[in-house]
């Protein structure tokens, strides 16, 4: 069982109050709504199920799992490899940018609050090395990778870290949709609850996968992400 300190970190990392800017990203959801493709809660739930099965699981969770194992082994090159691969698998530039900014902010926050809210996380060794690599431009600092490293150092197992990452992404997408479209709050919660088994499935299926097995397949989401770059109205960064 996870100790309470690690569990607190898991709660903190899943909390929308965590100031790493994830509320500014919609990963294409804004463009789906601009185009009128998503109007009901049901359609929104189906879309996010597609994200989980096509991107979050096979790309983000694979990267996070690899980063978690590499952090446990003190293997910085392994962490950087996860970063490289995830960047290569993420086609829309804005998706990469949103993920990199949030990852960088998470590492900055940790460095600032070493003795504060993240006191249980060792800001030394691999976390510091990884942050330096991001600062020096040697690696991108994608959010799932940063989360994997930080979670491992905070004592969270790979399963918990994967669930934190997938849950946060799903909650972020649902929140973005709620701010952009007309979805009721109970409808949003129904969809979230409907997505729980999918979150569990993709975390189970992909967290131990080899980096070489990583893929991302959500062509319409990629197209939405790319057309968003030139959208008439933009409230989100992606």
């Amino acid at each position: 069982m996870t100790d309470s300190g690690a569990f607190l970190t898991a709660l903190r990392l899943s909390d929308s109050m965590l100031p790493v800017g994830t509320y500014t990203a919609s990963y294409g959801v804004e463009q789906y709504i601009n185009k009128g493709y998503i109007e009901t809660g049901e359609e929104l739930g189906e879309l996010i199920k597609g994200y989980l099965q096509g991107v979050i699981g096979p790309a983000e969770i694979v990267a996070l799992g690899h980063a978690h194992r590499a952090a446990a082994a003190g293997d910085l090159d392994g962490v950087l490899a996860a970063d490289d691969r995830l960047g290569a698998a993420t086609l829309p530039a804005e998706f990469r940018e949103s993920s990199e900014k949030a990852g960088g902010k998470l590492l900055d926050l940790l460095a600032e609050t070493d003795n504060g809210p993240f006191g249980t996380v060792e800001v030394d060794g691999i976390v510091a090395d990884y942050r330096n690599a991001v600062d020096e431009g040697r690696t991108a600092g994608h959010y799932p990778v940063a989360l994997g490293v930080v979670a491992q150092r905070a004592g969270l197992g790979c399963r918990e870290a994967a669930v934190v990452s997938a849950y946060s992404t799903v909650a972020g997408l649902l929140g973005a949709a709620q701010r952009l479209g007309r979805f009721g709050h109970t409808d949003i919660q129904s969809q979230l609850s409907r997505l729980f088994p999918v979150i569990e499935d993709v975390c189970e299926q992909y967290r131990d996968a080899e980096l070489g097995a990583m893929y991302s397949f959500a062509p319409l989401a990629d197209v939405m992400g790319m057309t968003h770059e030139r959208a008439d109205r933009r409230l989100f960064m992606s």
Partner: protein
Amino acid sequence: MGYRDVAKVGLGGPVGSGKTAMVKQLVPRLDEAGYNVGVIANDIMTQADAEQLQESFAGRLPEDLVAGVETGACPHTGIREDPSMNLAKVDEFTEAHPELDVVLIESGGDNLAATFNPELADFFMFVISVAEGDDIPAKRGPGVTQADLLVINKTDLAPYVDADLDVMERDAQAVRGEEPTLFTDCKAEDGIDEVVDAIERSVLFA
């Protein structure tokens, strides 16, 4: 009886666009049309504000059907992501007054991105003022594009702020498609009857 059993009309819009003035115009008209009305104002800052609102409707609405809901400095959240405290207030209204027909819910002053949760408002009107600039509709804020009714208020000020009402009408139509837009001047009571008609047609006759 609960919040699902009563019609709820949301009024959103930027600070100073005339939401409260609109509520003060709508209540007597709805009351005289025979509807039992309640009013919830979000983000009332002082008890004096609440009392002032109750005083406006004294003799017309029971005092306990005029209430404030504080939204923790997050006006968006109170009407969109988590409208539970507003819905709890509507529940209180309906428990005490099962005869209630409609509740007007005025959002705290906000920006152009504010929208009402469809579970909180059966009908959502967004009130902007000509004095905020005649380019507001063209900005395509979600409040402007998603509202069931866009109200462009304070038309009397247009000549003083160089606002072109034709431009506002054209842009509103371009960004809202077939959804209606009305011009009002709460001070001279112009256009208010049309707003009441829109509310009646959309949620009270339905």
